[in-house]
């Protein structure tokens, strides 16, 4: 009689992904609702001055104030106001009007979206490319000079304030104030459709500024993960079976080591949005970040409320997507 070998039971296959996805999406929707609620409450409670005094201009008369209060619906009870707010948001993506210019906040944000997306797109290309390459090299040469030098540099870059790094880069390379004037400096951004060449060169320094810190953090984490993975039994088995080391490293180890990092993508994207404020301010790029900065300087709370809400929604949606990507890559995570 032939020896019967029990088939290994894969504990994780039993759980379908659909249930997990449904749960994450529901969680995301609940979060979006709470994000809207918290934003509303923050901006309702926190400011000393109410929206009407901000909107009505300097030293308004009581009648004007009452009229503005009426027009903005600020006299109604708070739960009615929140309901109106939510309805406008869901149905028309209505974010209100700027207290300063009177323009719709939605328009202000959409006008400035291309610049911010240009900035972020470049970083999203540079960041993983540099981060992964560096991590793989360092993990392969663990403990050698290049590993120690690169990881030391990564710690320093990881600790460097982005705004300071941006200013230093301007001081070094900007065509107007740089010691080695090879690249366009601040205020040189033009739209992609206006001139692709100038768009690209103007964004090189901002991209480097924002990507440096991101790549530094990711490469440190990925290197440590890779070192741990390369020590694991199944990688040793693969190596013992005669596969080329570079192949094992890229095909098996990197894939496993990078998976846990997808889980923090949502937070990282939030980090990019924050970094965009600093970089856009330093390089005078007309994006959402500089809109934010100007609104804060002018005390334009309705614009700030809109940008806070949009940024947080962005983070929640991307966080849910990152979670789903994560369990797709690593089925073990579905069980929890």
């Amino acid at each position, binding site marked *: 009689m032939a020896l019967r070998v029990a088939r290994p039971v894969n504990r994780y296959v039993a759980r379908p992904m659909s249930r997990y996805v449904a749960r994450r999406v529901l969680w995301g929707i609940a*979060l979006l609702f*709470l*994000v809207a609620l*918290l934003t509303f409450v*923050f*901006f309702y*409670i*926190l*400011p*000393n*001055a109410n929206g009407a005094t901000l909107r009505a201009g300097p030293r308004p008369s009581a009648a004007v104030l009452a009229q503005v209060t009426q027009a903005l619906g600020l006299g109604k009870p708070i739960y009615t106001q929140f309901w109106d707010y939510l309805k406008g948001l869901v149905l028309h993506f209505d974010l209100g009007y700027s207290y300063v210019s009177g323009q719709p906040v939605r328009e202000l944000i959409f006008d400035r979206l291309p610049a911010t997306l240009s900035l972020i797109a470049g970083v999203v290309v540079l960041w993983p490319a540099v981060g992964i390459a560096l991590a793989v090299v360092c993990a392969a040469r663990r403990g050698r000079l290049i590993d120690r030098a690169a990881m030391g540099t990564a*710690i*320093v870059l*990881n*600790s*460097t*304030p*982005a*705004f*300071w790094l941006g*200013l*230093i880069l301007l*001081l070094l390379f900007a065509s107007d*104030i*740089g*010691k080695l004037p090879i690249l366009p400096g601040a205020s040189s951004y033009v739209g992609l459709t206006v001139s692709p060449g100038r768009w690209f060169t103007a964004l090189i320094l901002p991209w480097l500024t924002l990507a440096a*810190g*991101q790549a530094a*953090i990711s490469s440190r*984490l990925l290197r440590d993960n890779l070192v741990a993975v390369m020590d694991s039994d199944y990688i040793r088995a693969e190596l013992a079976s005669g596969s080329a080391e570079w192949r094992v490293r890229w095909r098996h180890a990197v894939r496993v080591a990078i998976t*846990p990092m997808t*889980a*923090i993508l949502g*937070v990282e994207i*939030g*980090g990019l949005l*924050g*970094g965009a*404020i*600093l970089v856009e301010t330093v390089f005078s790029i007309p994006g959402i970040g500089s809109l*934010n*900065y100007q*609104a*804060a*300087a002018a*005390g*334009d*709370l309705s614009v*700030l*409320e809109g*940008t806070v809400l949009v*940024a*947080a929604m962005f*983070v*929640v949606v991307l*966080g849910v997507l990152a*979670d789903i990507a*994560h369990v797709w890559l690593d089925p073990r*995570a579905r069980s*929890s």
Partner: protein
Amino acid sequence: MSLGAPEMALRAEMSGTRVDALAGQTEALTPRQLFWRRFRSDRAALVAAIIVIALLVLAIAAPLVVRLLGLPGPDVQDVKLTGAFHSPTGPTLAHPFGVDQLGRDLLSRALYALRLSLAVAVAGTAVAALLGCILGLLAGWFGRWPGVVISLVLDLFQAFPVLVLGLALGAACGAGGCVSGALAPGAPVIIFIIAISSFAPVTRIVRGQVLALGEEEFVAAARSLGASPSRILFREIAPNLVAPVVAYSILLIATNMLLGAALTFLGVGGEPPGSTLGGLIAESRIYLPAAWWYLVLPGVVLLLAVVAFNVAGDGLLRALNLQAVRPSRPHRGESRVGSARSSEWR
């Protein structure tokens, strides 16, 4: 004392410390000795720890240091020292960091700024750590529902990009304070922003530790001896949380110095009574490129401090063998403690 000798030996073994292959000697090490032995062998962390202590001393004793160096105070103006059209002048022997547009000594200003930056970061981190410990204990100890509610709160707070929210809060509270004056403009607003941005990772770590420690044998032993839940929580579990929370807080101080600098660079919190390092860097912008030292030197002080806290914190976690500490929801959280630093504000 919650660690028995066999437990210690096991920990030493797991941590891979080589103690001359003498098992007996390993057992004789207390956790503190083990920690010290490992920390001492990590030269980078040791140097960083010394720098951290030196910076703290410099910050606390800033007035004394300024006087010992023979520098004028940070607010002493002397227009005679400025250049043409009141421009800042570069480093000299008498003023190693140069002089600003009002003739104030920049080294003296940088020392006071370091003091304020450190104070704000440490205070914000302390509030976050306290809040994180309370929430983490609640979530880890009281099972399901508090856990779900708290993770919803954490996800909610992590959804708001800190700098975006910080700018908004700063604008809302910058003029006359918020919440009927409880959040005054200046340092309190920044401390508040720091605290709400960093309590979430502390909560995750504490909850993860509480859940993990709850399954350890010494807790089972205490339970079988009839210890009350509160005794187990406060006498068995809580003492084991001190080391990870302290080590992680040191990393958080690094992050929060950067956050505080970014916020003051953007002008959040109105005019603080003194300048922070971020504020100094913001001031230097209009004097570029001529007064490059105005930008570079305060930035280097900030960078040195952040690097020192980062390296020292990493070293502490390694020496405590805590790199593997995972937040309680591994698929949502971070792959290891150090990674909970996110890059929001760089």
